[in-house]
Protein backbone atom coordinates (compact mmCIF):
# COMPACT_ATOMS: atom_id res chain seq x y z
CA UNK A 1 0.00 0.00 0.00
CA UNK A 2 1.29 3.44 -0.89
CA UNK A 3 0.42 6.55 1.07
CA UNK A 4 1.10 10.08 -0.07
CA UNK A 5 1.00 12.69 2.67
CA UNK A 6 0.63 16.31 1.48
CA UNK A 7 1.70 19.04 3.88
CA UNK A 8 0.90 22.66 3.00
CA UNK A 9 1.17 25.99 4.83
CA UNK A 10 -2.17 26.98 6.37
CA UNK A 11 -4.16 29.44 4.27
CA UNK A 12 -3.85 32.25 6.80
CA UNK A 13 -0.14 31.69 7.47
CA UNK A 14 2.40 33.71 5.52
CA UNK A 15 4.38 31.50 3.10
CA UNK A 16 7.56 33.44 2.23
CA UNK A 17 8.78 30.61 0.01
CA UNK A 18 5.50 30.57 -1.92
CA UNK A 19 5.66 34.34 -2.42
CA UNK A 20 9.21 34.11 -3.82
CA UNK A 21 8.35 31.22 -6.13
CA UNK A 22 5.26 33.16 -7.28
CA UNK A 23 7.44 36.15 -8.20
CA UNK A 24 9.74 33.86 -10.20
CA UNK A 25 6.79 32.30 -12.04
CA UNK A 26 5.52 35.76 -12.97
CA UNK A 27 8.96 36.84 -14.16
CA UNK A 28 8.95 33.76 -16.42
CA UNK A 29 5.77 35.04 -18.04
CA UNK A 30 2.96 33.32 -16.11
CA UNK A 31 -0.09 35.61 -16.27
CA UNK A 32 -2.97 35.90 -13.83
CA UNK A 33 -1.22 34.17 -10.91
CA UNK A 34 -3.39 34.59 -7.82
CA UNK A 35 -1.41 32.60 -5.30
CA UNK A 36 1.49 30.19 -4.83
CA UNK A 37 1.88 27.92 -1.83
CA UNK A 38 4.84 25.62 -1.42
CA UNK A 39 4.39 22.48 0.66
CA UNK A 40 5.88 19.03 0.73
CA UNK A 41 4.92 15.46 -0.12
CA UNK A 42 5.93 12.50 2.02
CA UNK A 43 5.59 9.11 0.33
CA UNK A 44 5.22 6.03 2.49
CA UNK A 45 5.21 2.42 1.42
CA UNK A 46 3.55 0.21 3.96
CA UNK A 47 3.05 -3.53 4.29
CA UNK A 48 -0.35 -3.11 5.96
CA UNK A 49 -3.97 -3.11 4.85
CA UNK A 50 -6.13 0.01 5.07
CA UNK A 51 -8.19 0.10 8.25
CA UNK A 52 -9.78 2.68 10.55
CA UNK A 53 -7.03 1.92 13.11
CA UNK A 54 -4.32 2.56 10.56
CA UNK A 55 -5.94 5.84 9.54
CA UNK A 56 -6.19 6.93 13.15
CA UNK A 57 -2.50 6.14 13.58
CA UNK A 58 -1.63 8.00 10.37
CA UNK A 59 -3.59 11.05 11.50
CA UNK A 60 -1.73 11.11 14.79
CA UNK A 61 1.65 10.80 13.05
CA UNK A 62 0.70 13.56 10.63
CA UNK A 63 -0.26 15.86 13.50
CA UNK A 64 2.72 14.99 15.73
CA UNK A 65 5.57 14.72 13.25
CA UNK A 66 4.87 15.18 9.54
CA UNK A 67 3.04 18.50 9.95
CA UNK A 68 2.98 21.23 12.57
CA UNK A 69 -0.73 22.05 13.11
CA UNK A 70 0.16 25.60 14.19
CA UNK A 71 1.30 26.49 10.68
CA UNK A 72 0.44 23.60 8.36
CA UNK A 73 -2.45 21.50 7.07
CA UNK A 74 -2.13 17.94 5.83
CA UNK A 75 -4.10 15.35 3.95
CA UNK A 76 -3.16 12.00 2.54
CA UNK A 77 -4.08 9.69 -0.30
CA UNK A 78 -3.96 5.92 -0.06
CA UNK A 79 -3.34 3.88 -3.21
CA UNK A 80 -3.27 0.11 -3.63
CA UNK A 81 -4.78 -2.38 -1.26
Amino acid at each position, binding site marked *: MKIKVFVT*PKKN*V*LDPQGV*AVGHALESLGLKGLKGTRVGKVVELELDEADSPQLRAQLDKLCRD*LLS*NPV*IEDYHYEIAGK
Partner: protein
Amino acid sequence: MNIAVLQFPGSNCDQDAFQLFATGLGLPTRFVWHKDTKLGDADLVVVPGGFSYGDYLRCGAIARFSPIMAAVKEFSEKGGLVLGICNGFQILCEAGMLPGALIRNSSLEFRCVTCDLAVEDAGTAFNTRVLGRRIRLPIAHGEGNYRIDDAGKAQLEANGQILLRYVDNPNGSMGGIAGIRNEEGNVFGMMPHPDRAFERFHPSSDGIAVARAVLSVRYPDLLKKSA
Protein backbone atom coordinates in the same frame (compact mmCIF):
# COMPACT_ATOMS: atom_id res chain seq x y z
CA MET B 1 23.22 25.36 41.01
CA ASN B 2 23.54 22.93 38.15
CA ILE B 3 23.16 23.77 34.46
CA ALA B 4 22.47 21.02 31.92
CA VAL B 5 23.15 21.81 28.25
CA LEU B 6 21.57 19.36 25.79
CA GLN B 7 23.44 18.08 22.74
CA PHE B 8 21.66 16.84 19.61
CA PRO B 9 23.29 15.69 16.40
CA GLY B 10 23.68 19.01 14.59
CA SER B 11 23.74 21.25 17.68
CA ASN B 12 26.48 23.80 17.07
CA CYS B 13 25.99 26.33 19.88
CA ASP B 14 26.24 23.76 22.66
CA GLN B 15 29.82 24.83 23.46
CA ASP B 16 28.81 28.52 23.38
CA ALA B 17 25.93 27.88 25.79
CA PHE B 18 28.23 25.83 28.00
CA GLN B 19 30.77 28.66 28.13
CA LEU B 20 28.13 31.29 28.86
CA PHE B 21 27.10 29.51 32.05
CA ALA B 22 30.44 27.91 32.98
CA THR B 23 32.81 30.84 32.43
CA GLY B 24 30.41 33.77 31.95
CA LEU B 25 28.49 33.07 35.16
CA GLY B 26 30.89 30.64 36.83
CA LEU B 27 28.22 27.98 37.40
CA PRO B 28 28.65 24.19 37.39
CA THR B 29 27.62 23.21 33.87
CA ARG B 30 27.57 19.88 32.05
CA PHE B 31 26.40 18.39 28.77
CA VAL B 32 23.54 15.90 28.43
CA TRP B 33 23.46 13.76 25.28
CA HIS B 34 20.12 13.57 23.44
CA LYS B 35 19.99 9.79 23.77
CA ASP B 36 20.11 9.95 27.56
CA THR B 37 16.76 9.41 29.21
CA LYS B 38 17.56 11.16 32.50
CA LEU B 39 18.62 14.75 33.18
CA GLY B 40 20.11 14.06 36.58
CA ASP B 41 20.38 16.92 39.03
CA ALA B 42 19.60 20.12 37.12
CA ASP B 43 18.35 23.62 38.00
CA LEU B 44 18.23 24.85 34.42
CA VAL B 45 18.11 22.92 31.15
CA VAL B 46 19.51 24.78 28.14
CA VAL B 47 18.39 23.66 24.67
CA PRO B 48 21.11 25.15 22.48
CA GLY B 49 21.16 26.47 18.94
CA GLY B 50 22.28 24.74 15.77
CA PHE B 51 20.72 22.59 13.11
CA SER B 52 19.51 19.53 15.00
CA TYR B 53 18.93 16.65 12.58
CA GLY B 54 19.88 18.94 9.69
CA ASP B 55 16.61 20.87 10.11
CA TYR B 56 15.00 18.00 8.18
CA LEU B 57 11.19 18.12 7.87
CA ARG B 58 10.98 21.34 9.97
CA CYS B 59 13.45 22.98 12.34
CA GLY B 60 13.26 21.09 15.63
CA ALA B 61 10.62 18.62 14.41
CA ILE B 62 12.79 15.54 14.86
CA ALA B 63 14.80 16.64 17.90
CA ARG B 64 11.61 16.95 19.91
CA PHE B 65 11.26 13.16 19.76
CA SER B 66 14.80 12.53 21.05
CA PRO B 67 14.77 10.36 24.20
CA ILE B 68 15.98 13.20 26.45
CA MET B 69 13.02 15.41 25.51
CA ALA B 70 10.58 13.28 27.54
CA ALA B 71 12.75 13.97 30.59
CA VAL B 72 12.90 17.69 29.74
CA LYS B 73 9.12 17.82 29.44
CA GLU B 74 8.67 16.07 32.78
CA PHE B 75 11.27 18.41 34.34
CA SER B 76 9.38 21.48 33.06
CA GLU B 77 6.01 20.12 34.20
CA LYS B 78 7.44 19.97 37.72
CA GLY B 79 8.41 23.64 37.38
CA GLY B 80 12.03 23.21 36.28
CA LEU B 81 13.61 26.08 34.33
CA VAL B 82 14.19 25.52 30.61
CA LEU B 83 15.85 27.96 28.18
CA GLY B 84 15.81 27.37 24.42
CA ILE B 85 18.09 29.46 22.24
CA CYS B 86 17.59 29.70 18.45
CA ASN B 87 17.15 26.07 17.31
CA GLY B 88 16.42 25.33 20.98
CA PHE B 89 13.47 27.77 20.78
CA GLN B 90 12.27 26.00 17.62
CA ILE B 91 12.53 22.62 19.38
CA LEU B 92 10.52 23.85 22.39
CA CYS B 93 7.79 25.19 20.07
CA GLU B 94 7.68 21.91 18.13
CA ALA B 95 7.48 20.03 21.45
CA GLY B 96 4.46 22.13 22.47
CA MET B 97 6.35 23.44 25.50
CA LEU B 98 6.04 26.96 24.10
CA PRO B 99 3.15 28.29 21.99
CA GLY B 100 3.46 29.19 18.29
CA ALA B 101 5.93 28.21 15.60
CA LEU B 102 8.91 29.62 13.71
CA ILE B 103 8.81 29.74 9.92
CA ARG B 104 11.12 30.97 7.16
CA ASN B 105 12.30 34.59 7.47
CA SER B 106 10.04 36.80 5.37
CA SER B 107 13.13 37.97 3.42
CA LEU B 108 14.03 34.31 2.72
CA GLU B 109 17.55 35.29 3.78
CA PHE B 110 19.61 33.78 6.55
CA ARG B 111 20.11 36.74 8.88
CA CYS B 112 23.35 37.03 10.83
CA VAL B 113 23.47 40.44 12.53
CA THR B 114 23.50 42.05 15.95
CA CYS B 115 20.03 43.31 16.88
CA ASP B 116 18.69 45.94 19.22
CA LEU B 117 16.03 44.34 21.38
CA ALA B 118 13.36 45.97 23.50
CA VAL B 119 12.98 44.27 26.87
CA GLU B 120 9.31 43.65 27.62
CA ASP B 121 7.66 43.41 31.01
CA ALA B 122 7.29 39.65 31.35
CA GLY B 123 6.09 39.71 34.93
CA THR B 124 7.95 38.12 37.80
CA ALA B 125 9.23 35.16 35.76
CA PHE B 126 11.93 37.13 33.93
CA ASN B 127 13.98 39.57 35.97
CA THR B 128 14.04 42.58 33.66
CA ARG B 129 15.78 44.74 36.28
CA VAL B 130 19.09 43.12 35.38
CA LEU B 131 18.47 43.90 31.68
CA GLY B 132 17.29 47.49 31.52
CA ARG B 133 15.01 48.50 28.65
CA ARG B 134 17.25 47.78 25.65
CA ILE B 135 19.83 45.11 24.97
CA ARG B 136 21.89 44.03 21.98
CA LEU B 137 22.28 40.39 20.97
CA PRO B 138 23.38 38.63 17.79
CA ILE B 139 20.95 36.60 15.71
CA ALA B 140 21.87 33.92 13.16
CA HIS B 141 18.91 32.12 11.66
CA GLY B 142 16.91 31.43 8.52
CA GLU B 143 13.71 30.42 10.32
CA GLY B 144 13.04 32.93 13.07
CA ASN B 145 9.75 34.32 11.84
CA TYR B 146 7.47 33.80 14.85
CA ARG B 147 3.86 32.86 14.06
CA ILE B 148 0.86 32.24 16.26
CA ASP B 149 -2.89 32.65 15.71
CA ASP B 150 -4.58 35.89 16.80
CA ALA B 151 -6.07 34.37 19.94
CA GLY B 152 -2.67 32.98 20.91
CA LYS B 153 -0.98 36.31 20.32
CA ALA B 154 -3.58 38.14 22.41
CA GLN B 155 -2.94 35.66 25.19
CA LEU B 156 0.85 36.20 25.01
CA GLU B 157 0.31 39.95 25.28
CA ALA B 158 -2.27 39.74 28.07
CA ASN B 159 -0.14 37.37 30.16
CA GLY B 160 3.09 39.28 29.67
CA GLN B 161 4.68 36.24 28.00
CA ILE B 162 6.73 38.27 25.53
CA LEU B 163 10.32 38.69 26.74
CA LEU B 164 12.03 40.52 23.88
CA ARG B 165 11.02 42.31 20.69
CA TYR B 166 13.20 43.35 17.77
CA VAL B 167 13.54 47.11 17.41
CA ASP B 168 14.05 46.61 13.64
CA ASN B 169 12.28 43.41 12.70
CA PRO B 170 14.86 41.26 10.84
CA ASN B 171 12.69 38.26 9.99
CA GLY B 172 9.02 39.23 9.76
CA SER B 173 8.05 37.93 13.21
CA MET B 174 4.52 38.83 14.33
CA GLY B 175 4.72 41.86 16.58
CA GLY B 176 8.51 41.76 16.26
CA ILE B 177 8.55 38.95 18.80
CA ALA B 178 12.10 37.69 19.49
CA GLY B 179 11.55 35.71 22.68
CA ILE B 180 8.70 34.39 24.81
CA ARG B 181 8.00 32.40 27.94
CA ASN B 182 5.28 29.89 28.73
CA GLU B 183 2.29 30.89 30.80
CA GLU B 184 3.68 29.26 33.95
CA GLY B 185 6.89 31.28 33.60
CA ASN B 186 9.48 28.48 33.71
CA VAL B 187 10.09 27.77 29.99
CA PHE B 188 11.85 30.45 27.92
CA GLY B 189 12.67 30.62 24.22
CA MET B 190 14.44 33.22 22.11
CA MET B 191 15.96 33.44 18.65
CA PRO B 192 18.76 35.89 19.64
CA HIS B 193 21.94 34.39 21.11
CA PRO B 194 22.86 35.34 24.68
CA ASP B 195 25.48 32.58 24.29
CA ARG B 196 27.24 34.73 21.68
CA ALA B 197 27.28 37.87 23.82
CA PHE B 198 29.54 37.56 26.84
CA GLU B 199 33.21 37.35 25.75
CA ARG B 200 35.30 40.46 25.19
CA PHE B 201 35.41 39.77 21.43
CA HIS B 202 31.61 39.38 21.21
CA PRO B 203 29.47 42.27 19.91
CA SER B 204 27.91 42.81 23.35
CA SER B 205 28.03 41.36 26.85
CA ASP B 206 24.26 41.39 27.40
CA GLY B 207 24.12 37.59 27.30
CA ILE B 208 25.20 37.45 30.94
CA ALA B 209 22.25 39.63 31.99
CA VAL B 210 19.83 37.48 29.97
CA ALA B 211 21.08 34.35 31.72
CA ARG B 212 20.70 36.12 35.05
CA ALA B 213 17.21 37.35 34.13
CA VAL B 214 16.18 33.72 33.61
CA LEU B 215 17.86 32.40 36.76
CA SER B 216 17.74 35.18 39.32
CA VAL B 217 14.00 35.14 40.01
CA ARG B 218 14.32 31.56 41.20
CA TYR B 219 17.87 31.85 42.52
CA PRO B 220 18.28 35.42 43.87
CA ASP B 221 21.61 34.56 45.54
CA LEU B 222 23.08 34.48 42.05
CA LEU B 223 22.80 38.27 41.86
CA LYS B 224 24.28 38.78 45.31
CA LYS B 225 27.27 36.64 44.48
CA SER B 226 28.10 38.50 41.32
CA ALA B 227 27.36 41.99 42.66
